[in-house]
């Protein structure tokens, strides 16, 4: 699936919910399913700045595709859910596509309303880091 196909799929899933709390519950449930990173990848270089909760991102190039794995501290379920959405959209894609991706799903599913500006800041840092890695490998 392309990045945009994945975004459209997520938008469709969130269309099922009218209520903010239901959307948040869905994100929390996604967070619970996010597999934890191995301890060896919980290193300062992988830590994303700007989040109230700790978020780690590990980036690799596998068979010419950028591969991302990420994790947030276990108690921060909303962050974990947000992280899992970004991984779902951007991981295992061509570097060029990631570097130039227009992540319209964030606004369309009301994520900017759903998260605090501070957390949105953290998400922005994560997206920036994913794109920088893709650009360096494009």
């Amino acid at each position, binding site marked *: 699936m392309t990045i945009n196909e994945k975004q459209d799929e997520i938008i469709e899933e969130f269309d099922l919910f009218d209520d903010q*709390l239901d959307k948040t519950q869905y994100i*929390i449930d996604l967070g619970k399913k996010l597999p934890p990173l191995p301890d060896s990848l919980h290193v300062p270089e992988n830590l994303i700045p700007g989040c109230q909760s700790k978020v780690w991102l590990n980036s690799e190039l596998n068979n010419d595709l950028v591969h991302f794995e990420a994790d947030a501290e276990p*108690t*921060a*379920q*909303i*962050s974990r859910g947000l992280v899992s959405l970004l991984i779902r959209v951007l991981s295992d894609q061509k570097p060029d596509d990631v570097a130039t991706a227009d992540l319209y799903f964030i606004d369309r599913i009301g994520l900017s309303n759903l*998260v*605090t500006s501070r*957390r949105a800041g953290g998400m922005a840092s994560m997206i920036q880091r994913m794109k920088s890695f893709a650009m360096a490998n494009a």
Partner: protein
Amino acid sequence: MQAITQTPLDIQKIRADFPVLDQLVNGRPLVYFDNAATTQKPRTVLDALTRYYEHDNANIHRGIHALAERATANFEATRRAIQTFMNAREAEEIIFTYGTTDGINLVAKTYGQTYLGPGDEIIISTLEHHSNIVPWQMLCEARGCVLKVIPINDEGELLMDEYEKLLTERTKIVSVVHVSNALGTINPIKTIIDKAHGVGAVVLIDGAQATSHIDIDVQALDCDFYVFSAHKLFGPTGMGVLYGKRAILEAMPPFRGGGEMIKEVTFEKTTYNDIPYKFEAGTPNIADVIAVKNAIEYVDSLGKENIAAYEHELLSYATDALRSIDGLRIIGNAKEKVSVISFVLDGIHHEDTGVILDQQGIAVRTGHHCTQPLMRRLGIAGTTRASFSVYNTTDEIDKLVKGLHRVKAMMA
């Protein structure tokens, strides 16, 4: 839970004085429990701001026209109102600043830079906000001074025996928070001031969190400096107060150079104005200063004692209600507290708690509350903090409790 409050205040009438409270947030009536960050503003304060810009706007002092005279008269009337509010000896001891942080920086940069040298000691406490830590660290770096910190017990109270041990003949400044913003602890500042004076140190009290809850009498306290921000006292943002004893203020060099703070300027030499103007360079925040008088009048109309008593009822009610929630731990259980409750929920990040409460229309603060060293001492990354003001109700506390049950259910 059945709530019967004893207050003579008409809380519904008070709520009607604060237009911002009457709104829906995320489809639910706003519950504003972030009063330790900033209080809401009563109609009289908002009207004063509008009235100033509609009728009196002019630059103050030196103007010879009617508007300038009116603006100046109202501006100086606030100084006298604050003098009375704090029971300062003279109105000239009231310096207008941009806020608590600005006041502390002023003292660190002027008094500190002038009178402290290598090896001199500054004492603060574990409970301090970053704004009462960093300016002293900067001073220590600039002048080679030593920063010492009063430790706390697990309830969030200062260890006064340890404080006494920190005092030496090298102690030049003791700068301590009156009320902890993160935990609500009320510190025994009278004892702190007296002990500091015993070794010849001057004392600054950070009153940012105190002025809306506690009666301030700087003469009875005998503190050398007392700083606070108007926006936590129902006044506008960007306006604060530095009280200082006349003799000390006069012995301090100016902070910023510019207009208003001078007596005479030549290219060879400038002589400085008298206090308070020596510390008020440039056009001040005229409208906001003027409106602060209305904020103080509003507090006076309710009565500080009535406010404190009612807030104490809210604190007791909320403490009991929150303790009934499984897995909730209140952080900071000092015997003397204002109406601030910090807490953590087992296994739930404070940020998630804040987001889900916000979605239910409940405004709280989450994080380290600009007290990272305190959080480190308590072994936590942050808390969720609910802080109550006179316009809050026990019904709203019930909503918080219900909201927290929802948080727990969603995270389960």
